[in-house]
């Protein structure tokens, strides 16, 4: 009983103990905030990656891809085990390419891109495409690379005018027999292309909202249905350069800068024709009804296509290095941050050693009154435990309130320092994402309390081992 009372009294009368509590509190709060933000970032990132990549990819290991994807998909559908679990499939051809275009001011741009031929119809079923298109996402129905009717008309007029000019240049000689009637020319309207958002757009500040958040608008100088780009890639058996004109019809905005700054989408069939690689693709993307079945499906697909020189992987496996890097980063950060609590632990050790020295006489008194060594030890262990609990509890409260208000705090700090701390242009999130995990809170609390107790063991043992007579003679 005296242990509890003394713990409590020591807590209330030693202001040094406040230092221990505050250091534990700060450590715990930091851990909670950092973990919540890291976890927020990584879950957001995972969500986005998964939203972009289909569940499973069957991928050719060479650039020429594999032939007859239709036959492969038919084989997959024929197997009940797979067709039951697979919701949709879509063939894709990916290849590097060079793209040229001009800004409205006439400046020409040439850059390499990642060219993707997609089949809009089946891709819409697999997902991860239309919902990222700046224009089409808000429109009902399926996405297609078709130009709008007005744009088509414009191209038709242009062709007609050029035709008229042609005729006007060649004068009609009445002496000569009339020239053979012109074969009606097939009007060539360029195919549509979807550009990655970061390739041809920029962000402009558009004032601030009522909270002081800087608002941005995206500007697309190339617009839609009016600008042409020239895409050059390689085709044919000899991999000769091939090129074609395309008209920008939409922009792809996944908020993953790696994709938005590289990817350019054209219709699959058009790309196959351009490269004279009819009926060849580089991958088949598969959407599952339930992602939990992915390992079984991958296994079955590997069995089916094992000899065809293709890879079968889940999206997580494909992004393995990135996801692993994130989790390693998180682990290292946690170890480093626990060192903060470790520092708090040494603070407890030092302060407790001082308190034990200061209380030497009192320890002697307690022993003279019949307190056991264990009882004296428990006073200081209990004291450490109490400091740990209070520190951890306060740290949890502080950490949670910081996490919940992290965006407001960021604004405040940005306003004070005058610079943007969380640059929305860099991070691509309009808010700092957070994700509070219960098990993380529990672990951090247990860890902090554990460290507080562990570091009070040594001073507590010292107190327990004090010889009562020496303690009583201590002045």
């Amino acid at each position, binding site marked *: 009983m005296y242990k509890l*009372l*003394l713990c409590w009294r020591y807590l209330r009368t030693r202001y040094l103990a406040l230092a221990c509590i505050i250091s534990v509190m700060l450590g715990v709060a930091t851990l909670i905030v950092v973990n919540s933000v890291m976890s927020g970032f990584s879950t957001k990132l995972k969500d986005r990656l998964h939203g972009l990549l289909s569940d499973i990819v069957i991928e050719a290991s060479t650039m020429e891809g594999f032939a007859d994807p239709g036959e492969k998909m038919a084989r997959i559908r024929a197997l009940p085990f797979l067709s039951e679990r697979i919701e949709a499939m879509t063939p894709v051809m990916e290849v590097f390419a060079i793209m040229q275009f001009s800004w409205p001011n006439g400046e020409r741009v040439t850059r390499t891109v990642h060219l993707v031929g997609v089949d809009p119809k089946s891709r819409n079923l697999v997902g991860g495409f239309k919902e990222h298109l700046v224009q089409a996402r808000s429109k009902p129905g399926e996405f297609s690379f078709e130009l709008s009717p007005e744009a088509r008309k414009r191209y038709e007029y242009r062709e007609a005018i050029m035709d008229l000019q042609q005729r006007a240049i060649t004068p009609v000689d009445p002496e000569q027999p009339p020239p053979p009637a012109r074969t009606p020319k097939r009007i060539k309207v360029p195919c549509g292309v979807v550009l990655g958002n970061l390739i041809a757009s920029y962000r402009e500040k558009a004032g601030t909202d009522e909270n002081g958040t800087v608002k941005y608008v995206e500007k697309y100088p190339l617009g839609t249905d009016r600008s042409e780009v020239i895409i050059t890639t390689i085709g044919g058996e000899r991999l000769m350069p091939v090129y074609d004109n395309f008209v920008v019809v939409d922009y792809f905005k996944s908020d993953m800068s790696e994709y938005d700054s590289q990817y350019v989408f054209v219709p699959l069939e058009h790309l196959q024709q351009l490269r004279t690689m009819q009926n060849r693709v580089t991958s088949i993307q598969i959407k599952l009804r339930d992602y939990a079945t992915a390992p079984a499906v991958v296994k079955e697909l590997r069995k089916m296509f094992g000899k065809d020189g293709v890879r079968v992987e889940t999206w997580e496996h494909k992004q393995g290095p990135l996801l692993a890097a994130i989790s390693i980063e998180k682990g290292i950060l946690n170890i480093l941050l626990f060192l903060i609590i470790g520092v708090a632990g040494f603070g407890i050790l030092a302060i407790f050693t001082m308190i034990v020295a200061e209380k030497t006489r009192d320890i*002697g008194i307690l022993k003279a009154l*019949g307190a056991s060594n264990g009882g004296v030890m428990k006073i200081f262990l209990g004291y450490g435990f109490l400091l740990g609990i209070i520190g951890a509890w306060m740290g949890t409260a502080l950490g949670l309130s910081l996490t919940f208000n992290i965006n407001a705090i960021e604004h405040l700090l940005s306003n004070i320092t005058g610079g943007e701390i969380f640059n929305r242009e860099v991070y691509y999130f309009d808010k700092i994402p957070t994700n509070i995990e219960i098990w993380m809170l529990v672990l951090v609390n247990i860890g902090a309390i554990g460290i507080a107790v562990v570091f009070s063991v040594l001073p507590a043992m010292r107190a327990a081992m004090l010889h009562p007579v020496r303690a009583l003679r201590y002045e």
Partner: protein
Amino acid sequence: MHPLLRAIDLQKTYRKDANRVEVLRGLSLDVHEGEFVSVIGASGSGKSTLLHLLGTLDRPDSGEIHLEGKRIDNLPSEGRDKLRNHTFGFIFQFYHLLPEMTALENVLTPAMIANSAWSWWGRRKELRRQGMAMLERMGLGQRWNHRPRELSGGEMQRTAIARALISRPRVLLADEPTGNLDASNGGHIIEVLRNLNRDDGLTIVMVTHNLDIVQESDRVVRMVEGRIEPAAALVNA
């Protein structure tokens, strides 16, 4: 019949590096039930050491200590903790109250040590009443909520006596209880001890080097060269 407390041929030597301080050199002493014994001797003669040995706060190098015929100096530490809690009451020259606690809490400390938090909770009213009664008996009923630093020396010593008595000990071991007090306060403390001895039959062993207060006690023994001087020599003193 056994004496209540008996020390037989106690030896105690403090060693520090090559230095040896032989404090007790074969000291024997009997204390009978209900006796008020004063131990006098020069400073450094080992009076405090003797008291610590008798109260099981320390162990002799050799010799034995018996309580009602049972040897107690070689008990394991739990047994000794219990004895200090129940059987011996200590008061010291410098009062040795716990500064964080009120007078009442100080008085109740031995009871808190004896009871777990659980049984304390069950008996807290009864124990508090006992503590209050003890303080009132020491004339400190009004001061129960004061911290030691808010009390005078005499009041602190009376609080310490109340604490020593709360667990109804068999023997009160007092180490210069008046050493830090002026004559009137010291006299008051001695009077309290005298009354406890006479009215309650409490056995008291008191160490002092103040010869003025020893006549209140039943018997005075003098320590010389680590032993109790033969009674004959005392008469001349």
